[in-house]
């Protein structure tokens, strides 16, 4: 792939990337979230057209117009989220789109069964061809996806974050299977942000950062620290002036918290944590290491398995979300469109979400006092510089930065004791990012406890008083900003160092 450039409106996802993979190697594609790995590979798989650049396979230029073209040229992709039909059997899923036919119209089930068994044996990817997808574990479903690609004649196999959803045992099995595929002459591209496993099985590794290629290295000649350095951003944008405070009190206490994710696998493992007043505690970590589950558990949006949550030494473990909000927890969610706002509500209606039954917006808890609400909204629009035509505009029509201002205005104006800020500046431009960050520092200076969860090390480093690193549902290390650097954090959050 030569000079690939791809932008989505303002965002340049791939900026003039050269990416060369040699036949018969396992090539790691490494980078943080949003570095452009998946976009680059989706381009190779024909899912979207690059703005600029060429794709060559075996030295021949190919116009990758659709996955069908990619498949024809031997490119197969296993997506992060599987594309399987849950109620179909393994072999039905594998042959889908290219079914063996008998008597012109009937699917030849025996042949399908046999073909799948042969493939499975040849590449030692064990599956039961007759099992239905929804009855088999995720690790096996992934094998089905791989077999599907091989069935269609894939020579180049792209795997997007294949280990993200697997248990450690399943990861080992997968890595072994990939090595086996390599010895049989297949070429594999492995998208990942887990340094250890990449280093373990890849021959060469290409690192992307913010849409650009940082470099390609041989696995034998590199090291975990070097990769971590290449992967994470080094330049610190701006440090915030933060007043020192002496008498801090415990605001949030988490004691040996255990939380499961949807499938019943542990997402948070015996996590303990304290956040003080006048303090920003930054949680650094690669997405998917239990951060979402932690936030949801703290907000009462997800059942916990065991453990305790304290707010100012009051047990809130079993309180409803509403009561937690009233106790003084504010939450700037990761996804403002999904969790933070109701986009078809007006700015005014969004500004009272969470307090709609409380004074001053409702005097009796039953009806909403729209006069007080309107007055409050106009104040917020002014003091948080929410650029909207008026308070009755739908949140849908605001820019991303303005939407985030609405969320911040609502959450910060409640005079909270604790603010949970989850990726608060994600997707925002520089101005909006600065605004969000300065508001967090302001809240901290006022005496608020701030739990900042972010995959952006820049943000964590420039804002936090203390940094905790989260990996696989645990806090694996705690640092002060002074005693750490990107390399150290990068290693910790990718499991490269414990």
């Amino acid at each position: 792939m030569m000079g690939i450039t791809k932008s989505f409106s303002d965002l340049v996802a791939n900026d003039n990337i050269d990416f060369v993979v040699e036949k018969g190697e396992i090539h790691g594609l490494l980078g943080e979230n949003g570095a452009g790995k998946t976009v680059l590979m989706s381009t190779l798989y024909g899912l979207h057209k690059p703005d600029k650049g060429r794709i060559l396979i075996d030295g021949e230029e190919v116009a990758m117009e659709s996955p069908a073209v990619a498949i024809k040229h031997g490119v197969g992709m296993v997506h992060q989220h599987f594309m399987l039909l849950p109620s179909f059997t393994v072999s039905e899923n594998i042959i889908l789109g290219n079914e063996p036919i008998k008597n012109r119209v009937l699917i030849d089930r025996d042949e399908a069964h046999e073909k799948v068994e042969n493939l499975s044996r040849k590449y030692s990817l064990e599956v039961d061809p007759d099992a239905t997808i929804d009855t088999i574990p995720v690790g096996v479903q992934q094998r089905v996806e791989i077999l599907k690609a091989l069935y269609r004649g894939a020579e180049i196999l792209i795997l997007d974050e294949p280990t993200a959803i697997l248990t450690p045992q399943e990861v080992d099995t997968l890595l072994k299977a990939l090595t086996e595929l390599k010895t049989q002459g297949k070429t594999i591209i492995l998208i990942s942000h887990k340094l250890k496993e990449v280093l373990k099985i890849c021959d060469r590794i290409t690192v992307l950062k913010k849409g650009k290629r940082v470099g390609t290295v041989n696995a034998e000649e590199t090291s975990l620290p070097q990769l971590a350095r290449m992967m994470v951003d080094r330049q610190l944008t701006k440090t915030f002036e933060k007043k020192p405070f002496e008498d801090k009190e415990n605001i949030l206490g988490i004691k040996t918290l255990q939380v499961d994710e949807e499938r019943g696998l542990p997402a948070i493992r015996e996590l303990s944590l304290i956040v003080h007043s006048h303090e920003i505690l930054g949680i650094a970590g690669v997405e998917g290491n239990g951060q979402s589950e932690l936030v949801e558990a703290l907000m009462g949006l997800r059942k916990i398995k065991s453990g305790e949550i304290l707010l100012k030494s009051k047990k809130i473990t079993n309180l409803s979300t509403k009561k937690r909000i009233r106790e003084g927890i504010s939450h700037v969610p990761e996804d403002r469109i999904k969790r933070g706002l109701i986009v078809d509500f007006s700015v005014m209606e969004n500004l009272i979400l969470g307090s709609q039954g409380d004074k001053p917006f409702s005097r009796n808890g039953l009806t909403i006092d729209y006069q007080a609400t309107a007055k409050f909204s106009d104040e917020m629009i002014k003091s948080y510089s929410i650029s909207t035509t008026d308070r009755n505009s739908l949140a849908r029509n605001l820019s991303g930065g303005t939407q985030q201002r609405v969320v911040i205005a609502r959450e910060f104006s409640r005079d909270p004791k604790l603010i949970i800020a989850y990726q608060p500046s994600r997707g925002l431009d520089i101005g909006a990012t600065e605004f969000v960050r300065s508001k967090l520092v302001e809240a901290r200076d006022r005496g608020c406890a701030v739990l900042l969860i972010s995959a952006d090390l820049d943000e964590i480093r420039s804002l936090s008083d203390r940094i905790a690193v989260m990996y696989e549902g645990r806090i694996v290390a705690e640092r002060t900003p002074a005693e750490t650097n990107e390399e150290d954090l990068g290693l910790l959050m990718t499991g490269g160092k414990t």
Partner: protein
Amino acid sequence: MTDSNSGDKEKSWPLRTLKSALLRIIPQILAITAAFLVGAIILIVTGYSPIDVYAAMLQGAFGDEYGIGQTLTQATPIIFTALAFLFAFKCGLFNIGAEGQFLMGGFAAAIVGISFSELPAPIHILLAILAGALAGGLWGLLPGYLKVKFGAHEVITTMMFTYIATYLTSYMVNYPFKAPGWVAQTVPIADSAQLPRILPPTQLSASILVAVALAGATYYILQKTTLGYEVRASGLNQSAAENGGINVKKTIILAFILSGVLAGVGGAGEILGVHYRFIQGFSPGYGFDGLAVALVGGLNPLGTILAAILFGALRSGSMLMTRVTHVPSDIVVIIQALVIIFVAAPRLIRYLVGRRSKT
């Protein structure tokens, strides 16, 4: 979007509200016009004069006091069922079982209407309507509970509960509560339970006043109360509503109950105001008409009244039309269906309008 907003800035807000209300009803008016135009084509093709037919229809529906009374009588039950659909819809729920809630409400009101004879009229009427509300509310609560507790989809359950209601009431009036004679119906309700007729000799009863009051109440609840806020929030974005401390499950149950209450009161009004007894099959599908009327009314409680009157007019107008022009009254069903299709396909309308404004 921004263009029209900047133009609005200079105007005062009542003007702007009026303008936005007008803008909102334009697609509905276009859809209705389109339906009548296509209806005209069908009439021409089948050899009738659309002008004569529509004139007779208009004459029948609005030509005299009697016509108007019949139109409003026909509109009344569908205002209730449309409000029922609308209220649940605002909570993101597709309650297509207003028919069942309507029947249960009607039956409960009939029983209360029959059971007491010594009560003063206002109290008796109130009791009977209350019984209708309770029965309708219960018939809303059940699918709501099944949804929240077991994840049963309300389209299936409300539909099934409609069957249960149809056959349950049918059993009741064929066996335990059957009046002497051939017809499957209850004995008449006591005089003290009858809603006053407001435009004799038509069957128009005070039920329509209840309908209009409930349309106002629905608007008030949805727009001005915390419950309404939480209903709309849960309907538009469950995740954000939860995050804002709203108990979405509780809200869904409440929305279902209130939806059922609206339909149930409608059934009660029909029994107490028009039929004076529960007759098997007295509803020609008012519950399902309600769904269409709510959509044609732009999912707005006040628009619902207008749309219900349109549907009522089509029904009452069809009688004179058939007599004068010999066109089968089925043409009315066709026009109703066309209205629904055009309203349900706003993109089609936008396409037609967009093309016209370009040329």
